[in-house]
Every structure is written in C-alpha cells, then in structure tokens.
C-alpha cells in the first residue's frame, strides 16, 4: 500500500505541491467493471493548509485525477459497519465506494475523522466509533502524519483546532511528569486528585482571606460611585450654566455683527452724504450774484466761485444717479441753476457793456496810431478783458446761449473799430502816396493822382499798346518814375506790415478769450487744413472774417485803384504780398489767408499784364519812318526788364517773372523776324542785325541766368544778320573781275590746268589786262563811297552799327582781293599782272571814307 502511496505522491501531487496524507483503494459499488481507483486525502504544503479529497484512477499512462472535492464540502461520511468494505461519502452528492480492505477503510476513516475533528463544523460520522486509546495514539500519530497542530492551521478560513499553545505546553508538562507514573495510573490519579483538593482548599482560603479586602474594595467602589454621581450632578449644573451662557454669547455675537453692519452702513451713508453735500455745496450761495467784476480780485473771486458752481452743477458725474431723485438734491440743483442763470446774465451784461464801451472808446482814440500806417492793436481792451478769459470758458460750457450772444456783441462792437481803422489806414496810405508826389515839387496835391495816372498811363500804353510811336523815355523821367514806384511799394509794404500784428493779435486774443483753439498746424506749409473742418477753427475764421472783412476789400480796391493808373504796380504788389503771405508764421493765420487771396488776385493781374505785353509785341507794326531802327518793343523790353529786376530782385516770386521773360523773349524774337520780313525800304537784315544786337547787349547787361540761352540765340541771330547784310549789300564792287575769275574757276574744274588757262581765248593775258583796267583805284574808291552812303541810309543811328558794318565790308573786300590775287599768281605765273590798287589802298579808301563822314 505504501508503494502506491509513494507513487501517487510522486506522480500526482508533487507537481501541485500537495502532500498525500492517506489513501484508500476503492471501487464503485454499482459498477461491474472493477477498475481500481484511489481515494486520496491531501493537504497543501504551503500554509494555510487546504485539505482536498481526490479520486485518482490508474490508467496505462499512469495516474489521472478524475474528481476532486475540498474537505469542507464533505457533509457526511458513513462507515456502515466493521464487517463491510462499503462506505459512503456525502459530497456534492452521495458517493458509494467499496474499499479494498477493512484496514485501509479504518485507516482512511481514522485519518478523515482526525482531520475533520479540528474543523469548526466537522461532518457527521455515522457508524464510526473511535476509542480513547485510539484517540490518544492518534494524537501522538499526528506528528507522524505531520499535520501541524497549529492554531493558525485553518481549513477554509473559519475552522480552528481547540488547544492553545500554552494549554498544550501545560498538558505536555503534566503528562511529562506523569510519564514515569503512567504505569501506576491510579496512584497518579490519586496524586492529581490530592493536589487538586489542596489547590481547592488554598483557593477557598485565599478567597476567604480576600473577602474583607473585597468588602473594603466594594465600599470604596460605592464611595467613588457616589462621588462620581455628585461630580456628574455638578457637571450637569455647569453644563446647564454653560448652555445658558452659550446662547447669551451667541445672541451677543449676533448683535455685535448687526451693530457692525449698522456702523458700516452709517459710515457709508455719512461718506455718501458728505460727498453729496460737498458736491452740491456752494458756500458762496447768492453772494455770487453780487460779484464785483470791476476789480481784478473781484474777477478772480468770481472766477473761482463760478467754477465752484460749475463743479456743483456737474454733480451727475460725481454721485449716483439715483441720488439725483432726492428731493433736496433736486432743490439744491434748482437753486444752483438759478444762481448760474443769474450769474451768467450778470456776467454777460457786464461783458457786453465792456465790449460796447471798448468798441466806442477804441474807435475814438485809434486814429492817431493809424497815422503810422499801422492798424492799432487794442491793447487796452485786451488787457481789460484777459482776466475774464476763464469766466468766458465757464460761460461757453455752462451757458452756450449767453456765450453765443456775447460773441455776437463782441463781433459787432469790435468790427466797427476795425472797419473804421482799416478805412483810415488805407486813406492814410493813399494820402501818403499822393503826398510824395507833392514833395517831388512837380505838381500840386490836388492833381496828384491825375499826374500819376497820366504818366503811368503813358508808360502803360507804351508797353501795352505800342503803335510804333514810342515816346522817348529820358533817363531823368524814368528815375522819377521808379522813385514813385518805389514809394508806392514802400507804402504798400508799410500797410501790409501794419496790418499783420494787429490782426494776428486779435486772432490770438479771440482764440484764447473765446476758447476757440486753432487746430495746430505744426506741419506748416505741407498741410492744408480745410477751413470747414474743425468747428473751433471754422468758428474762429468766421469771427475773424466778420471782424476784418474790410481788409480784403480795402486792399483789393486799393491795389486795383493804383493798378488802373499803373498796371505794372501789380508786379511789386505781388512780390510784397508774396513775402507776407508765404511767411512760415502766416501759414495758418487769418491775415495769411487774406494776403493769400489778394495775392492770387495780384498774380492774375500780373499774368494779365504780362499777357498784354506779349500780345502787344505780337501785334506791333513797323513804324512808318524810313528807318525803323531799334523796334519799340525791344527797348521796352529792356525798360520792363530793368524795372522788373528792381522789383523782383531775388524774391521768391522770381520764378513767375522768369516764366514770362521767356515767353516775352520768344514773342520779341518772333516779332523781330516777322517785322524784318515785312519791311519795305530798309532791308530786313538791317532790322534783324540792329535789333538782335541790341537784344544781346540788353540780355548781357541783365545777367539773368535763366535767359542765358536767349542771350546766345540773340548773338547767333545778330551774326547771321550781319553776314547776310554784308554779303548782300557789299556785293561785288569788282564785278567784272569776279566774273572773269569765275570763268577761270569753271575751266579749272573742267580739267584745264591752271598754268594753261592763259592760253585759252577768253582768258588770255590781254583779256585779263583789259578787265583790270576797268577798275582803277579812283573808280574803286568812288564805288566804295556810294556803297557807304547806301549803308548809311539803311542803318539807323539807334544802334550805331555803321562802323561795324563798314569794317565787316572792308574785311569782305580784302578777302575778295586776296582770292583774286592768288588766282592771278597761280593762273598767270610770271605775267607780272597786278590789280591797279593794293591792299593798303583799300585800307586807305575805307578809312578815308569813314573819316570823311
């Protein structure tokens, strides 16, 4: 049997780490086939030990586990009887097995019983009894079976064995002591009983002894209980008291927090009220209505009060809107509103009075300053009004209606002053222009204007409508003319200078006093600010133009008036106005704009005038005189240019002038060419020669860099005309000789050798001598004399070019002479034929003729 057990252990349970405790060879009761199977009880090697029942069958391949059950699933085991091999095990169902032998069956049941007896709920064992002896041996055998009697040995977690370690130890000790007495069990029992009774006796004794102590202990326990009760009572009292206090404290706390809230609220309320009162407070009250506007201190105080009032009236910004609904707030507001209205009315009437007053007094005393051609600055008024500036700002914000009406009053009353002063200024300017003529001592004051008109008119006409009969312009008269012109320009300059500061001061004053800040145009002249843009700037401009509307009209009529007398005045006016209008500091001032507008008018007048000049040049006709000489428009151009240069100098407007210079010169060039072509008696060459000569000298004198090209052109045109004239009119005084040699040249070009010319019939030496004979020195001189007379008749005295022409003709004659001479020497070598006069003779003739005239 042990062999099977060993095999089973090794083959089946080794691998699952179980130890086989017992085995019984069984076969099923109801089967006919007797296949031996082994019913094994195993315990796991690892703790906690689990006991399992296996049914193992033996096949050819070895052992095979057929079925397994945990030990705890064993509910009942039936041993049946000692004689029978049968037994039943009630597992999940009832199994009936037949053991091989009774011994095996006994041993198996004993083992099963032993293991199960330690379980909490051991299965029932039917028909199985085990005697004490057996039990004892079994207990000893336990070690052999090596089931450790350990308290921790647990089957299915809740099964425990009875003996504790200590009990086991005691038992072993007792048994150990009794080992030698096992034989004499009776004696041992007796001894044990004796010991027991002794121990009992002692026990009772000690119990008896300790009674008193127990009693006293009881007493003290009773005492302490009663004390405890007392303490408890006290504690209860205390607790009551504390509970009471607690509720009181809670109450107090609540009250406290409520009080805090109330205090906070009060503070809020207080601060809100303080704010409100401060905002609404206007301590001055109705005192403001008695403000003294006549002293600086009074004004300062009024200003301060007014701003306080403004502050008070602007409460909407400072306090909660809901507060505005408070009756007292509304009342106070109404009250303040009333103050404001009354105050602004007072202020308005006071200022209006001031304006009107200043309007009146300034217009009275200002005429004296006008005499210096200076529009007076109403400093007195500015000084008096400046302290009110802040009040004005207040008024603008608080009462725009009053502000508007004040603005109107101001404009109306000050407008009068300026209108009058401007008129006086221009009157004075006119008087001064006339007055200068008086000092020149030529004319009486009354006809001054007429005199100027007459003289300038003459000049104007001479420039604009030249009909050819140029009145000669003596240098003396011209200088008076230019000094008068200068005087006019000086006066104009003074007027312009005189206007500027006053208008600018007024503009600045209005801007600050009426709080109309000008949109700063720091960008200067590269930026245009539309006047319609920016309401303040537009408003300022509007006021300025209603104050100073007189300036533009007066200035325009002043200029037109004088330009009617002398159209060229517009040139100087343009320069002067240009200087003022285009000044950097005038870019955004009102006066700059006035000057700008007038300047455009002047520029137009200037363009018109220049255009009329050009037109006049284009329309000009030849004079009916025999000798046209220098054309009128050429000399006039010089006069014009000299005057224009003196006016424009290096002014900024020079470019405008130069544009017209070019146009005018183009017209002059065209005019000269046109009239030269139209001329009757006088050759066109002479007209061109003389006029371009003059024009060149004019341009050389003017030294205008822009006209360099025109100067060069004039020079070229002059030279062309001179050459043309000389070739045309000097002609060929030795005509036959010329023709003779032209024939010679023709032959030469046909291929005849120069040395063989003399053998030709027509050009024989005899023939040459005959032709030469026709030009004796006397004849030549006579011819030259008649030529000189002709040239003299052609040329005018204006340009005095006779000598130049005469010299050019002399050059031409010499050139011709030399060419003839060289041809003779080449074609008739060694013939010793010469002309009947020499180069020296020619030079002599020319100088004689020139001197004799």
């Amino acid at each position, binding site marked *: 049997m042990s062999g099977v057990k060993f095999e089973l252990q090794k083959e089946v349970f080794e691998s699952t780490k179980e130890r086989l405790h017992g085995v019984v060879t069984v076969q099923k009761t109801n089967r006919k086939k007797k296949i031996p199977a082994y019913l094994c009880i195993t315990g796991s090697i690892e703790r906690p030990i689990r006991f399992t029942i296996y049914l193992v069958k033996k096949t050819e391949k070895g052992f095979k586990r057929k079925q397994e059950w945990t030990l705890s699933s064993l509910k009942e085991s039936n041993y049946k009887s000692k004689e029978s091999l049968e037994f039943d095990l009630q597992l999940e169902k009832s199994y009936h097995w037949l053991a091989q032998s009774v011994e095996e069956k006994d041993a198996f049941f004993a083992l099963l019983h032993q293991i199960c007896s330690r379980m909490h709920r051991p299965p029932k064992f039917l028909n199985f009894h085990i005697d004490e002896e057996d039990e004892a041996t079994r207990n000893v055998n336990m070690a052999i079976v090596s089931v450790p009697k350990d308290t921790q040995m647990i089957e299915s977690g809740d099964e425990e064995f009875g003996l504790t370690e200590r009990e086991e130890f005691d038992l072993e000790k007792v048994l150990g002591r009794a080992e030698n007495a096992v034989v004499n069990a009776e004696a041992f029992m007796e001894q044990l009983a004796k010991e027991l009774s002794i121990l009992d006796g002692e026990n009772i004794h000690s119990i008896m002894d300790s009674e008193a102590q127990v009693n006293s202990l009881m007493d003290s326990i009773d005492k302490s209980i009663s004390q405890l009760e007392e303490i408890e009572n006290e504690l209860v009292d205390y607790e009551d008291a504390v509970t009471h206090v607690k509720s009181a404290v809670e109450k107090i706390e609540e009250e406290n927090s409520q009080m805090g809230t109330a205090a906070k609220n009060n503070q809020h309320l207080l601060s809100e009220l303080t704010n409100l009162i401060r905002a609404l407070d206007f301590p001055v009250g109705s005192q403001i209505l008695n403000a003294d506007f006549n002293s600086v201190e009074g004004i300062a105080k009024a200003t301060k009060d007014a701003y306080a009032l403004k502050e008070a009236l602007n409460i909407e910004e400072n306090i909660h809107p809901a507060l505005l609904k408070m009756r007292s707030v509304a009342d106070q507001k109404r009250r303040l509103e009333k103050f404001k209205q009354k105050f602004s009315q007072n202020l308005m009437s006071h200022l209006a009075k001031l304006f009107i007053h200043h309007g009146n007094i300034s217009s009275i005393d200002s005429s004296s300053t006008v005499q210096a051609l200076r529009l007076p600055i109403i400093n007195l008024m500015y000084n008096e009004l400046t302290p009110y500036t802040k009040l004005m700002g207040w008024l603008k914000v608080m009462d725009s209606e009053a502000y508007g009406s004040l603005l109107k009053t101001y404009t109306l009353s000050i407008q009068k002053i300026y209108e009058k002063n401007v008129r006086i200024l221009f009157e004075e300017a006119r008087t001064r222009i006339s007055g200068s003529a008086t000092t020149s001592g030529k004319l009486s004051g009354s006809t001054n204007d007429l005199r100027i008109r007459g003289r300038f008119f003459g000049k104007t006409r001479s420039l604009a409508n030249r009909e050819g009969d140029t009145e000669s312009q003596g240098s003396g008269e011209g200088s008076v003319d230019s000094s008068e012109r200068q005087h006019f320009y000086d006066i104009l300059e003074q007027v312009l200078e005189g206007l500027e500061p006053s208008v600018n001061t007024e503009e600045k004053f209005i801007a600050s006093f009426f709080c109309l800040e000008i949109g700063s*145009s720091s*960008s200067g*002249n*590269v*930026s*245009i*600010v*539309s*006047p*319609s*843009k920016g309401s303040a700037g537009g408003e300022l401009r509007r006021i300025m133009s209603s104050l100073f509307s007189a300036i533009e009209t007066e200035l325009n009529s002043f200029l037109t008036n004088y330009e009617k007398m002398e159209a060229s005045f517009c040139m100087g006016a*343009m320069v002067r106005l*240009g200087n003022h*209008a*285009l000044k950097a500091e*005038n*870019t*955004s001032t009102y006066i*700059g*704009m006035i*000057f*700008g*507008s007038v*300047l*455009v008018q002047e*520029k*137009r007048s200037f*363009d018109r005038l220049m255009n009329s000049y050009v037109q006049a040049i284009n329309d000009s006709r030849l004079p009916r005189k025999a000798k046209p000489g220098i054309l009128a428009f050429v000399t006039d151009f010089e006069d014009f240019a000299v005057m224009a240069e003196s006016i424009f100098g290096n002014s*900024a*407007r*020079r*470019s*405008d002038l130069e*544009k017209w210079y070019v146009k005018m010169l183009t017209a002059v060039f065209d005019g000269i060419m046109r009239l030269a072509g139209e001329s009757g008696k006088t050759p066109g060459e002479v007209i061109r020669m003389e006029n371009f000569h003059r024009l060149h000298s004019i341009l050389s004198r003017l030294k205008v860099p822009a006209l360099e090209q025109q100067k060069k052109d004039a020079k070229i045109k002059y030279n062309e005309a001179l050459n043309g004239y000389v070739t045309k009119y000097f002609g060929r005084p030795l005509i036959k000789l010329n023709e003779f040699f032209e024939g010679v040249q023709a032959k030469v070009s046909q291929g005849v050798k120069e040395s063989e010319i003399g053998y030709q019939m027509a050009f024989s030496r005899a023939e040459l001598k005959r032709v030469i004979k026709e030009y004796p020195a006397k004849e030549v001189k006579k011819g030259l004399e008649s030529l000189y007379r002709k040239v003299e008749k052609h040329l005018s005295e204006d340009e005095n070019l006779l000598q130049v022409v005469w010299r050019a003709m002399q050059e031409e004659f010499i050139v011709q002479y030399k060419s003839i001479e060289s041809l003779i020497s080449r074609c008739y070598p060694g013939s010793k034929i010469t002309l009947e006069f020499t180069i020296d003779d020619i030079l002599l003739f020319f100088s004689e003729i020139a001197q004799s005239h």
Partner: protein
Amino acid sequence: MKEYKIVVLGSGGVGKSALTVQFVQGVFVEAYDPTIEDSYRKQIEVDGEQCTLEVLDTAGTEQFTSMRDLYMKNGQGFVLVYSIAAQSTFNDLEDVRDQILRVKDKDRVPMVLVGNKCDVDDSERLVGKDQGANLAQKFGCTFLESSAKARINVSEIFCDLVQQINKEVVPVPKPKKRKCTIL
C-alpha cells in the same frame, strides 16, 4: 474744339506744378517755387478727338485755401495729387474731395487721384500703392501713381480726366416725340 477746364489740387510740395509743366511743356522743373496760381493751355488728342485743356495749377499752401471754393466751382475735372513720400499730403485729400463734392453738389465729379514722385526709392515711400488704390476706390475715381521727373503716367492723368468728363457730359437721349398720324 472742345475745351476742358482742369484743376490740379493737393498739398504744398507734392509736385502739382512739376506734373503740369511736364504735361504741358515736356520738361521737368527741379526747383521748388511755391505756386500762387498758373494757368496753362494745351491741345491733345483723346480718343481721336482734338481737345484743348485749360489746366489750372493751384497753390498748395494753406494761405490759399479760401480760393479753393472758386477753383472747384469753375473746374470740370480735378487732379488730386499727393506725394507718396509724405503721408500727410495723402491724408489731406479726403477733405479736398469732400469739398469738391460739396461745392459741386454732386455725388460724382470727374477726378483722378495721383500719387506723385513714384520714382523715389522704396525706402522713402510712405504711402503704399494699395493705400492709394483703396482711397480711389472709396472716391470712386481713377488712381495713378506718377512721376513728373521720370515722366511716368503724366499725360495719362489728363487723358483719363478728359474721358471722364466726356462720359459725364454725354446727354441723356431725349425720348422720341410721338408723332401723330392724321388719317
């Protein structure tokens, strides 16, 4: 021959005169002399038709702003010039355009927006081409970048303006009169 009154407007120093003189005389004026007012005449052919342009070159500086109303009243077409090298000159034009519409009391007036000096280096450019194009779109007008110096897009400005004016003046064809037939 048809006459066109054209006014050149814009801030000071943007090159109004340079453009005008380049157009009329074919030369580039290097020197800067602030213009007061200059009037030029020039004949050109636009769409096969000869026309005379009267070009009014105006002052750009602020002193002359009061004259602008008059220019706008008399002009038929307007050249609005700014310099691509100066942002402020560009910004000023919106007001000018508004003023033109106000004076003319119309929604549309023949107009060309011109960004002059387009020959300058990119480093000097301060107004982008797209900015100009956007403004022109807002104005509902033609946009050109030009250079009087390099003669870029100069005559184009004026031709376009003439075309715009031509389009504008095209009269609405009168409805045909109904003829009565007497039976």
